[in-house]
């Protein structure tokens, strides 16, 4: 696949799928502020995916709605982390923390992309992503220094989620060209910045970072191999759209 398309599909699909997962907290948040926070982040992420699908459309791909609502799981390039069900709040918070630290660093780097339309979008999104990282840090620090139960639950969520989070950085065949053409710094460099960034927060808590060298990353998402959770989500997302794909909503 063309390196630009390859990169953009991964970025856009991550945003769309996590956006929909975040929206599932609407009405269910443990406190009102968290209900609103996850719903707001969902809205941001859908907006971000729309910008990225818009860039793909500019490169000759189908309309954003068509791309978002008519593909099946094997055609999606999101990492497996984003498709997992929302589970308990400790898992959703941990996923949000691990994903959005990577996302903030990713879009800060993309602001210098050699592909100017993507750099423009990145310069917009990075400011918004700071709020996502700020929100995640606040709660990881608060719960990571709270009661024994809170710390145990956050640690268990971290241990469970980390292999999936390492799947964010799965590379594709286009990776060497993505780096050499200056499109993006590459997944390996991003991962090393990410490990530093999350470690800084964990050091302010009672949480212990597992040794990532010993973990097997959850790979496959970038090449269309997904967990069984993605297809039902896509079916639900597209249920109304597919009733009448030509309708003007």
């Amino acid at each position: 696949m063309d390196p630009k398309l390859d990169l953009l599909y991964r970025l856009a699909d991550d945003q769309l799928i996590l956006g929909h997962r975040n929206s599932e907290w609407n009405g269910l948040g443990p406190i009102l502020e968290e209900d609103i926070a996850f719903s707001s982040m969902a809205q941001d992420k859908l907006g971000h995916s729309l910008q990225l699908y818009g860039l793909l459309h500019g490169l000759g791909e189908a309309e954003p709605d068509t791309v978002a609502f008519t593909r099946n799981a094997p055609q999606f390039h999101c990492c497996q982390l984003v498709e997992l069900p929302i589970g308990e709040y400790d898992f959703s918070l941990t996923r949000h923390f691990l994903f959005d630290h990577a996302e903030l660093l990713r879009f800060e780097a993309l602001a210098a992309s050699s592909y100017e339309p993507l750099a423009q979008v990145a310069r917009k999104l990075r400011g918004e992503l700071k709020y996502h990282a700020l929100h995640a840090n606040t709660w990881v620090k608060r719960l990571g220094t709270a009661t024994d139960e809170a710390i145990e639950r956050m640690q268990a969520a971290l241990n469970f989620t980390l292999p999936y989070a390492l799947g964010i950085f799965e590379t594709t065949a286009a990776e060497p060209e993505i780096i050499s053409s200056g499109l993006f710094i590459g997944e390996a460099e991003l991962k090393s910045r990410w490990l530093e960034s999350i470690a800084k927060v964990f050091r302010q808590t009672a949480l212990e970072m597992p040794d990532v060298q010993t973990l097997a990353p959850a790979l496959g998402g970038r090449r269309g191999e997904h967990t069984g959770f993605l297809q039902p989500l896509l079916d639900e997302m597209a249920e109304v759209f597919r009733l009448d794909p030509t309708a003007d909503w």
Partner: protein
Amino acid sequence: MPETRFDKAQLLEWLQAVKDPEIPTISLIDLGVVRGVEIDAATGNVAVHLTPTFAGCPAMDYMKRDVERTLLAHGVPAVEVTISLREAWTSDMISEAGRAALRQHKLSPPPVLGNRVLDLDFLEYAECPNCHGHNTELRTPFGATLCRAVHHCHDCRQLFEQFKPV
């Protein structure tokens, strides 16, 4: 050739009447959402360029519609409104008049960033729009809309909303 009865200054004056759909005190111009206005000398048609405050802002379609309606009502023959991130919006694009308009709506205006980095100190700071105190605390970075955060003022003990700095 149709006679053009308006110039750019006139268009900007008309556009001052187009307010943010959710903050009725501030115009799109003072909010910094209007990034360009051009008149085609031959036809008198007008092109207006907008940029969203937040990428996922659901009010963009309304803003576009309101700009079109307002200019057409003043006799502009045709209006084309485009929306892009070509020039990414930052909260520094809010004018001084815009900041006053936000205060009037009891929204704390975002601090001016200038050349500084948008770091945590910046995101957490807000002036209370009720008592103008600075002894305030960020309660949650997500409020009633994407562009608002919720703070608490320790001086007057009121919750208040802030238009977020980005």
